[in-house]
């Protein structure tokens, strides 16, 4: 968290006077986090309430880099600016965008305090802060080692750093990844990353190797990825799952070594993706239980407080994966429920869906998806599908192109 605090201080100087005055008389929704869940919720509440609700979005960064497609950037298929999005259109659509960090939530006073010193009162509070890492999850690694051994699991400078390290690998060098345990952000994400790193190396450094130490014995779209690695990246990827000691791992960022089940290997790049938990502000707000924030499926309100809602990765909700698509889907259900509660507009039944596309190689896309409904207990899966092994190259290309369409669609849906 040290780095975060420094960022607070440098980005927050000139924010808060105006928003306090603007909201008077109207109910106010404060949204913490302008990513897949938060930006969508803010946009929908502002758009659909037509000014009846004062929507304040708190987000420290002025440009949000999507984690989705950040692996394609590593693979050389996107530029970093292709995945960066600003908040100007949201602001123009009536969302009061405050570039600051939320540092505290006082639920009894219904107040959020900001790093810059401001305090905002709310009628309803939405938290969509994404993830933070569980301390001590990977032996030898902590957040101060994220330059030597990047996670690149929050996109932006971390993605650029990992890409630079990948490009600087010596001929025939070794790229290691420490994969995370369940549950974590984007189940196929580490394996799409392996594919995109392999694609880059095949073109630029074909004798290089990739080692993956994984605490799991199976993973999302496993058959599809393993088929793709065997077909396209012959002999390059060595995946070491839990059955072969993949959970018994430590790293030494100073020496640039990784030790897997007692065997020490020198590596040139080490992408450590530690175990995850809800973004810290959810814990500070007192709405977490263990690592995540339990929510009610009907409206994404927390079990701890009916006026505080948690969206996206930070929520413990049931069957949905932690994906951008899922966060966006949950945000719309939540926005409809909050608008109804504050203005008396109609509240419709919760419906959720998700599709996650992954890229195995250029024009070789696969997907998995499902629909979900709210039960008393959780968000429950209704129906689903997954791409098959052995599909034609035409179908795989069409699937990849569809993911490009989805990216354009969801980013427009989030940011306007």
């Amino acid at each position, binding site marked *: 968290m040290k780095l975060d605090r420094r960022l607070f201080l440098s980005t927050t100087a000139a924010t808060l006077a105006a928003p306090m005055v603007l909201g008077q008389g109207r109910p106010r929704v404060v949204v913490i986090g302008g990513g897949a869940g938060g930006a969508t919720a803010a946009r929908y509440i502002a758009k659909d309430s037509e000014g009846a609700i004062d929507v304040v979005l708190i987000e420290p960064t002025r440009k949000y880099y999507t984690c989705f497609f950040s692996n394609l950037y590593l693979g050389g298929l996107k530029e970093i600016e292709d995945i960066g999005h600003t908040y100007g259109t949201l602001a123009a659509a009536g969302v009061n965008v405050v570039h600051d960090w939320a540092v505290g939530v006082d639920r009894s006073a219904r107040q959020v305090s900001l790093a810059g010193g401001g305090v905002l009162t709310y009628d309803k509070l939405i938290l969509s802060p994404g993830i933070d890492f569980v301390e001590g999850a990977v032996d030898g690694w902590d957040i101060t080692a994220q330059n030597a051994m990047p996670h690149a699991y929050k996109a932006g400078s971390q993605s650029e750093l990992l890409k630079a390290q990948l490009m600087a690998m010596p001929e025939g060098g070794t790229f290691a990844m420490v994969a995370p345990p369940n549950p974590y952000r984007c189940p196929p994400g580490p394996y799409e990353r392996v594919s995109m790193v392999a694609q880059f190396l095949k073109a630029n450094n074909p004798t290089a190797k990739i080692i993956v130490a994984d605490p799991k014995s199976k993973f999302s779209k496993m058959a599809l990825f393993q088929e793709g690695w065997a077909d396209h990246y012959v002999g390059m990827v060595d995946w070491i799952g839990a059955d072969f000691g993949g959970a018994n791992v430590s790293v030494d960022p100073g020496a640039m070594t990784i030790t897997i089940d007692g065997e020490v290997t020198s590596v040139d790049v080490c992408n450590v993706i530690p175990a995850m938990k809800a973004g810290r502000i959810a814990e500070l707000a007192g709405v977490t239980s263990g690592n995540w924030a339990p929510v009610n499926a009907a409206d994404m309100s927390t079990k701890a407080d009916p006026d505080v809602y948690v969206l996206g990765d930070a929520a413990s909700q049931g069957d949905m994966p932690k994906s951008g698509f899922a966060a966006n*889907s949950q945000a719309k259900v939540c926005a409809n429920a909050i608008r109804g509660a504050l203005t008396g507009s*109609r509240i*419709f039944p919760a419906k959720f*869906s998700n599709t996650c596309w992954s890229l195995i190689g250029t024009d070789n896309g696969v*997907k998995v998806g499902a*629909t979900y409904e709210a039960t008393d207990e959780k968000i429950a899966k209704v129906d689903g599908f997954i791409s098959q092994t052995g599909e034609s190259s035409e179908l795989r290309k069409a699937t990849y192109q569809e993911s490009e369409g989805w990216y*354009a*669609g*969801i980013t427009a*849906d989030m940011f306007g």
Partner: protein
Amino acid sequence: MPAGSDVLADILAIKGDLEYGEYLASECTTCHRHDGTSEEIPGIVGWQAKDFAAAMSAYKSKSRAHPVMQMVAGRLGNEEIAALAAFFESLGR
């Protein structure tokens, strides 16, 4: 006459609930751009209600191929398809 056309006639006989349609449409706009432009995924804003309802019925009965659309349409009832069709048509006016 194929079974699907009875269903379609039933859907077209329903007066679509625009407000419900707007809510349901938020699921569509994750992929189909809300400005109506097509970028790898076709735009659906402004479609005639009858064309929209026909497409959704075809996905629902699985006579039209596409796993995502079959899944999405598969859980929509007639009221819901009518609501969506009315909403997307209304955007074209």
